[in-house]
Every structure is written in structure tokens, then in C-alpha cells.
């Protein structure tokens, strides 16, 4: 079995790699940059990639999708309140580990996904199932009703997403922190029952949701 560990800190990545190699008897390589990761994936034969959410910043869902498309199973290490677990699972992740679960939680998650199962920690499972229930209810609601459920700020953020703005640009345009922008994005995704920013952008375009406060430009 071959495992990749992607973490921005070499010390942490190497520590996780050593633990996984010892506990699972696997060949484990560590990547500290996206370039390293892409090279290791290109070498082929990857069974599982452990991806720390901090490794890819805002692009964790996209990277998750790419890695799962490349054929391996993806386990994502998340922080409380930072990522939408449903978005990660919809992007191809089959395992979620909270950073607070420690190395024992990571080993359990990797072991579970290599057995062909989805892994969500016990303390997150209820919340994730609730996210699924809410998303499915919203899928069945007319789009107009779903749009009405957004706050004015969330509607503004949706309009900016539809114009191709990323988190940093949204934060700058609305004079808020990137963390707050990300919170707005996660909330609107939940309310609209969408799995990713890409889906949100497509929704904004198809429903003619435009930013009302500012023009978006890419200069």
C-alpha cells in the first residue's frame, strides 16, 4: 500500500508519515508543497492521500477532486468550523479527520478507507448527516425560495462568486476578513444545498444573481 501525506509543515508531515508507515506497514511519502504532491501522484500507485486542509487553503475541495479523479482515496484533516464537510465529501473525499483526533484518529481513518468504507469521526457524524438532510430538503425547494433564505451579505457573496471572485477578492471587495468571507460562502452553500463554489457560481449565473454593491473586475 502506498500513502501520500500532504501537509505544509515538513515536521508534521514527516511525523504523520512515520506513524502511518509503522502502524499500517505502508510505503508513505510526504509532500510539503503542491508541486511535490503533484509529482508524487504522477509517479502512480497511490492508494490513499492524506490532505491537510491547510495544505491547499481555499482550494482544498478542488485538490480533493483532482486527487480522487487520479484514482486514490482522499482523507482530509479539518479544523472546527473551517470547512464544509459535505463539500469535501462531494468533492471526492472518503475520509474526514478532525485535527483534534490526533494520530490515532488519522490511523483509524486511513485504515477504514482502505477497507472501502467512508470515515467520518463519531463526533462529526450527526452534524454531517444533518448537513445532508438539509441539503436534500433545499434541493427540493424552488430556487426562488432558496434565494430568499440568503441574508443580503450572503446574496452579495453569491453574486461575487458568480463573477469569478475568489475568497480573497470577496474579502477585499466587502472589507471583511477572508475567514468571514469563507464563513459566508459555507453558509450560502448550505442554504442553497450546493456542494462547491463552482456549483454556487453556476447557480448565481443561471439565476442572474449579481453583486449590487461593487463591480468585479479582473485587472
Amino acid at each position, binding site marked *: 500500500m502506498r500513502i501520500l501525506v500532504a501537509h505544509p509543515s515538513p515536521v508534521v508531515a514527516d511525523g504523520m508519515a512515520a506513524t502511518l508507515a509503522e502502524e499500517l506497514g505502508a510505503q508513505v511519502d510526504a509532500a510539503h508543497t503542491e508541486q511535490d504532491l503533484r509529482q508524487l501522484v504522477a509517479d502512480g500507485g497511490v492508494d490513499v492521500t492524506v490532505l491537510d486542509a491547510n495544505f491547499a487553503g481555499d482550494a482544498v475541495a478542488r485538490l480533493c477532486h483532482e486527487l480522487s479523479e487520479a484514482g486514490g482515496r482522499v482523507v482530509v484533516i479539518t479544523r472546527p468550523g473551517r470547512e464544509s464537510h459535505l463539500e469535501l465529501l462531494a468533492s471526492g473525499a472518503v475520509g474526514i479527520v478532525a485535527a483534534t483526533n490526533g494520530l490515532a484518529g488519522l490511523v483509524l481513518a486511513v485504515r477504514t478507507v482502505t477497507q472501502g468504507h*467512508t470515515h467520518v469521526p463519531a463526533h462529526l*457524524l450527526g452534524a454531517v448527516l*444533518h448537513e*445532508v*438532510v438539509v441539503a*436534500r*430538503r433545499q434541493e427540493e425547494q424552488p430556487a426562488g425560495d432558496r434565494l430568499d433564505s440568503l441574508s443580503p451579505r450572503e446574496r452579495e457573496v453569491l453574486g461575487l462568486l458568480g463573477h469569478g471572485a475568489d475568497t480573497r477578492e470577496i474579502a477585499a471587495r466587502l472589507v471583511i476578513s477572508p475567514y468571514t468571507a469563507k464563513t459566508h460562502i459555507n453558509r450560502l452553500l448550505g442554504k442553497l444545498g450546493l456542494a462547491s463554489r463552482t456549483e454556487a457560481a453556476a447557480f448565481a449565473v443561471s439565476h442572474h444573481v449579481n453583486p449590487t454593491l461593487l463591480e468585479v473586475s479582473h485587472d
Partner: protein
Amino acid sequence: MTDVLPVRPRRTSSEPVERWPEGAVVVPGTPDAPGALALNPTALALWELCDGNTAVTEMVEAVCVLFAVDPTRAREDVETALREMVSAGVIR
């Protein structure tokens, strides 16, 4: 088990009395009900979903989506777990 399963079950207490990494113990919120019930992670998640608004069919659909399991099997497993909770008095 012959307990009738409510369409939208509701917990009889708000929080588990004890949690550990692989589950929790919940107790009935009514004094005349049986004792404590130990729940595995999936059963605990279902118990948490029992808010009186979420239908059993929605729970089954969510389990199918999340774990990519067969709907018939998911329905059986969810209903078995919920019936056990009804019997123990931790949902109604």
C-alpha cells in the same frame, strides 16, 4: 421488536450522559422508561437527528448518500436502530 416507529422521532433527552471516541450513552428523559442505552457512532448520529422535524425517510436517504450503501439495507439498519431506541425510551 414490535414498537411502532414514529414518522419524525424526537429525543427524550437533549444530551448523552457520557461520550467516548466510539459512541455515547444516552438515557431516557422520562422517569418510568428503561435504563441507559449505549450507542455506536452511527446510532448516536441517528439519535442526534431525532429532533422531531427529521423524518425517518430523510435519515435513510442521508445514510445512503453519505455511505453509498444500498437503500434497502440502509432502511433496515436505520429502522432497527431507531426501534431499539424507542424500546429503550430514548426517542419517541
